[in-house]
């Protein structure tokens, strides 16, 4: 290839300013999201296939394309404090259709993980944690269902942690390893008193 005048210095100079971060932008936010999500939001060219595929978009202001852009621009606070972050049903339609082979759903999940680190989380998520900590089940058994199981000739409780309670301390150890129960209790108490 013929030597182009000024190459590569001229090109490098041109590219030097390609990251145009504002005062509220954090490049490390982009990196964290990419690491947690194991996908490549920086490859997004904003075609909007994701938003067009999204069942939450037509009935809310939630726009997955906008969230992906916020990741690329490092707009951490703007992304993590937007209540729409929690309207993704994780249906993965956007992920199936993304022409850039990005997994926008996993980008959302990564942002939710980062939001939780700042105590930003809807309470219902934490109540699932509390239920699992006590019973091993996110949706535990109840008396109506126990009676129905017996009528079916089954044990009143399924052969899960409901019957084999000796497995529950192991589950509690896993959750405690990540201090998840303590954080859940603290945040629920702050919100609900």
């Amino acid at each position, binding site marked *: 290839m013929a030597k182009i005048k000024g190459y590569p210095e001229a090109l490098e100079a041109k590219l030097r300013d390609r990251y145009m971060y504002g005062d509220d932008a954090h490049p490390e936010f982009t990196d964290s999201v990419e690491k947690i999500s194991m996908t490549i939001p920086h490859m997004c060219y904003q075609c909007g296939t994701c938003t067009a595929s999204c069942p939450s978009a037509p009935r809310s202001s939630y726009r997955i394309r906008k969230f992906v852009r916020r990741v690329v621009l490092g707009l951490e606070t703007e992304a993590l404090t937007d209540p729409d972050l929690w309207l993704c*049903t*994780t*249906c*993965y339609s956007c992920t*199936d259709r993304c022409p850039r082979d990005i997994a926008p759903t996993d980008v959302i999940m990564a942002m*939710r993980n980062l939001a939780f680190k700042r105590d930003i989380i809807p309470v219902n998520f934490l109540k*699932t944690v509390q239920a699992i900590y006590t019973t091993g089940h996110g949706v535990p058994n109840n008396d109506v269902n126990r009676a129905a199981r017996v009528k079916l000739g089954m044990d009143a409780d399924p*052969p899960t942690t409901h019957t*084999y309670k000796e497995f529950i301390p192991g589950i509690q150890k*896993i959750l405690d390893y990540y201090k998840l129960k303590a954080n859940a209790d603290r945040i629920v108490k702050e919100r609900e008193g």
Partner: protein
Amino acid sequence: MEAKHKYAFYLGCIAPNRYPGAEAAAIKTSKKLGIELVELKGASCCPAPGAFGSIDLNVWYAMAARNLVLAEQMKMDIALLCNGCYKSIWEVNHKLKHHDELRDGVNEVLKTIDMEFKGSINVYHLAELMYDKDIVGVDKVRDSVTNPLTGARIAVHYGCHLMKPKKERDFKDQDLLNTEAPTWMEELVAALGATPVEYRQKMQCCGAGGGVRGYDIVHALDIANEKLINLQDAKVDALTDICPFCQLQFDRGQIEIEEKFGVKYNLPVLHYCELLGLAQGMSPQDLALDLHAISCEPFLQKVL
């Protein structure tokens, strides 16, 4: 008769704790198809991929891995009947098998409870096994039918987390990788003698996942309602699903939709295992269909 195929039966939460008929039907119908489902003792919630995945993916990996290790200790592959569970159990198994760093992190935690993830088993959805010619296959399902559901118009809700995201799935059957307009479940419905019915936006989500049902129930129900409108237009007698969480959303959801939006559908919603149970001669009592929020009676009168 010795069953040809044996699996550790991973139950999850909603089937055993809300729709026990689906669990009973899964065990009985599978037996007739040469599959023995063995109790997986001490399993917990998968855990809920939307809730736990949103809070801290590392906890999701570790909790799902604990369930996987229980089956590894039995030296058995896992079969399950819920798409949400499939997302957690299949996907975490797959991820931990292929990412050394993730596996090491998980094993660090599991060490505190004397467990180790080895990656020695596989995970399957029962619907996938029933469609798989090498395990059961549509013909064998058809042959097991003693009470064909003739005349019933049945629509399929595939749900999201069995097949999507397809780029992370590795089904050997290409039909299961079609996430835009699949028809393999319709084949399984037709095998029961029923008429499978297509409807607009068949592949749309039920709206319950990702914690949305708990976070904003009206939003979640509005998504389900859109599907119910499309199902009503298609004049179906019942909706069948392969995910008890979707089933809860469409079944109990219809009561909530009536309360919040003032519209009523009375559309029976049955897990495919429940349908198969009926077709194999199980009674509505054997399936605890009276636990369903929406009465299955009009549908039952048509098929029994």
